[in-house]
């Protein structure tokens, strides 16, 4: 199953951008994908959420959507069907010197971004400020549309250049740091991460684990799986399950019945 993850990621990218085949723009997609992109099939969940904030309406459909996905698999969307997560993994494979960032307070930045740029500022000012700064919009919509449409080229202003600069910095960071956008910035990841500790799908570490940290080496978000298997940071890519001590389980753990896994040498 794990070796097919890349096919899920490619499939999600094609499905989210399938406007040339069919359109389902009335429905949000689970991963981050800009709906201003000319070939986008579905709606961006963050763009839609901001739009509801601008309208000052409760997004019932979106809340239900997040609760269902989060309640079932937690943050698995980020690891399996988010095109931006895949882009980060691909770019991190570049053979350059890598940086390991362990500064824990940075983890909370994504919740600040969610609360401020996605919820509070659009609600108060009536403008979707996360979209205005989002680098995904620049890659998928800004650059292609500016190239294709002369009339849009005439409308370029400071904001577009700010977005280009943000995109440049973000893409450069992808080369050196493991999934920096997912870990520190992404408000969609922040939303799903709240469900990780309580979701139906969860990770369990067996008693035989001797904390060799191999799981951390393969982890795309650099967490110590044996310390916190259901960390809000975990994108549930399941790369760590290649170790015999880490397992994906469905349902909650039964109290008083810890499961043992054979010693792995």
């Amino acid at each position, binding site marked *: 199953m794990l070796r097919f993850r890349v096919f899920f990621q490619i499939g999600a990218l094609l499905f989210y951008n399938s406007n040339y085949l069919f359109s389902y723009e*009335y*429905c949000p997609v689970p991963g981050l994908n800009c709906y201003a992109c000319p070939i986008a099939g579905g709606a961006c969940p963050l763009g*839609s959420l901001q739009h509801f904030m601008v309208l000052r309406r409760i997004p*019932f459909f979106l809340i239900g959507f997040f609760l269902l996905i989060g309640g079932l698999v937690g943050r698995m969307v980020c690891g399996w069907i988010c095109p931006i997560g895949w882009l980060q993994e691909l770019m991190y494979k570049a053979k350059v010197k890598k940086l390991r960032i362990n500064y824990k307070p940075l983890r909370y930045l994504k919740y600040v971004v969610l609360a401020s740029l996605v919820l509070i500022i659009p609600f108060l000012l009536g403008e979707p400020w996360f*979209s205005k700064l989002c680098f995904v*919009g620049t890659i998928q919509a800004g650059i292609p*549309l500016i190239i294709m449409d002369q009339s849009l080229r005439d409308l*370029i202003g400071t*904001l577009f250049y700010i977005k280009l600069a943000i995109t440049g910095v973000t893409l450069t960071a992808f080369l050196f740091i493991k999934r920096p956008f997912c870990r520190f910035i992404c408000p969609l990841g922040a939303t799903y991460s709240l469900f990780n500790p*309580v979701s139906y799908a969860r990770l369990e570490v067996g008693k035989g684990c001797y904390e060799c940290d191999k799981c951390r080496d393969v982890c795309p978000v650099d967490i110590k799986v044996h310390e916190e298997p259901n960390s809000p940071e975990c994108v549930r890519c399941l790369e760590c399950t290649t170790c015999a001590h880490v397992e994906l389980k469905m349902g909650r753990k039964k109290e008083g019945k810890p499961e043992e896994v054979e010693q792995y040498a």
Partner: protein
Amino acid sequence: MKIYRFLLLLGLIFLITGIYLNENWNIFINARMLCFSCVGIE
């Protein structure tokens, strides 16, 4: 009741309420048409 069951039930209720209020058809399509912000044009 297990927490994830409660979340799934709540999610289903919100989802059905959203569909009942027709918000998925009207609002998402309007949101997409208005999204110049994503492009970077003021």
